[in-house]
């Protein structure tokens, strides 16, 4: 049986690992390579690494750092941040990364998704949609440039469009829930699962294994990703990297797939 994917999401700023709250107040939490080594030992399902500066500062992806991370990583790696061309995506895949994530560039130039999929295969193309609930509305708008630019487009419509263009996976990342550890947006998660026929991954808000279980319980086999939950421990947010082992995953999360009657 295919398992849901439990995915740590690491943010990189100035070459170091950071964690944000609502895309602001970034706090330095350590060295990316060290984090990758710990997730290797803990046998994490997959890893997402996002360079949150690259697009905003209009910088090329840091290929040297990507190659070092990819060589160290013993689980599938998804890398995003600053990818605007087919050539950049190819270079990242060639350095040993399994999937490339595009966000701002996919919104600004949708054909790029198709072009990249044609070159590296759609299984390696991930579109990350940062979203925020519109005031006094049920609609979630897609925001780009690390939460600074509102495209005013409905995240579910954009997800469908990206699937049609060639995305192999859709990740939605809640700006409202980022870093707050109060749980995922379950309603939107289920709407996304129903909207597209690609794998989907939900990011933003995890504070416990129960929060992850709730997503699996309503959406089935999807990816659930988290940042803070895997890097902070306790009420004072002390930095301590953790990840559930296979037994914990089966007992506390995956068991939601086979409810006992």
């Amino acid at each position: 049986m295919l398992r849901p994917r439990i995915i740590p999401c690491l943010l990189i700023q100035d070459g170091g690992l950071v964690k944000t709250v609502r895309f602001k107040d970034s706090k330095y939490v350590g060295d990316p390579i060290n984090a990758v080594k710990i997730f290797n030992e803990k046998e994490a399902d997959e890893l997402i690494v996002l360079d949150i500066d690259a697009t905003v500062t209009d910088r090329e992806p840091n290929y040297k750092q990507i190659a070092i991370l990819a060589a160290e990583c013993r689980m599938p790696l998804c890398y995003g941040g600053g990818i605007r061309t087919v050539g950049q995506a190819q270079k990242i895949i060639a350095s040993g990364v399994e999937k490339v994530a595009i966000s701002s560039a996919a919104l600004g130039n949708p054909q790029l998704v198709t072009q990249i999929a044609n070159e590296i295969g759609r299984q390696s193309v991930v579109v990350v949609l940062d979203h925020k609930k519109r005031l006094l509305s049920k609609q979630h708008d897609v925001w780009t440039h690390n939460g600074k630019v509102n495209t005013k487009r409905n995240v579910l419509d954009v997800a469908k469009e990206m699937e049609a263009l060639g995305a192999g996976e859709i990740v939605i990342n809640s700006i409202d829930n980022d870093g707050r550890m109060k749980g995922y947006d379950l309603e939107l998660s289920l709407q996304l699962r129903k909207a597209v026929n690609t794998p989907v991954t939900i990011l933003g808000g995890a504070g416990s294994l129960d929060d992850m279980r709730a997503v699996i319980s309503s959406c089935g086999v999807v990816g659930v990703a988290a940042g803070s939950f895997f890097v902070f421990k306790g009420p004072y947010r002390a930095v301590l990297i953790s990840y559930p082992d296979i037994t914990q995953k089966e007992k506390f999360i995956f068991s939601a797939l086979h409810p006992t009657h």
Partner: protein
Amino acid sequence: MITIIDYGLGNIQAFVNVYRRLHIPVTVARTTEDLSAATKLILPGVGAFDHAMEQLNASGMRATLDELVLVRKIPVIGICVGMQMLADSSEEGLLPGLGWVPGRVRHFRSVTGLSHLPLPHMGWNDIESQSGHSLFKGLESEARFYFLHSFYFECAQKVHEAARTEYGLNFSCAVSVDNIYGVQFHPEKSHHFGVALLKNFAEL
């Protein structure tokens, strides 16, 4: 020496790292000369079928590989698209495959009833291996591997299926004929399960 075929596709370094950690000698081949010391071959692959075949055919190594595998019977393992390249043909492309394992590569969507199956098949899945198969020694129970694909290998002869996996249907996630092996999943990214499989291949 275990030799990884580098024709410009696939995560070469991940395989090198696994074998280095196991203290098993490994090398990377980019030319025919690099293949001269090979006693085992790894054929990785990612992306589209035709692109992979074009790259391999243009690498200058194709004729030597046919000789090593078909005449000198050196063990070879194809990984992911590398496994699909072992087939006669693929629904994904027009170019012929290597034709080393009888079969064709099909898209999950071309199977009746799978129109709503989320694709690609992405993530960790169980496998059921043929009992006593040397590639899966120690991996008989509880083994799981990382998959990332939308096309699968359909064996012409069931006897060539070394392991199977269920995703929408039961499909061959590993094949073997004599000295030729293939796995659809990514052992280089499947933690200790994948390490065990690559070690088994080294010890064949």
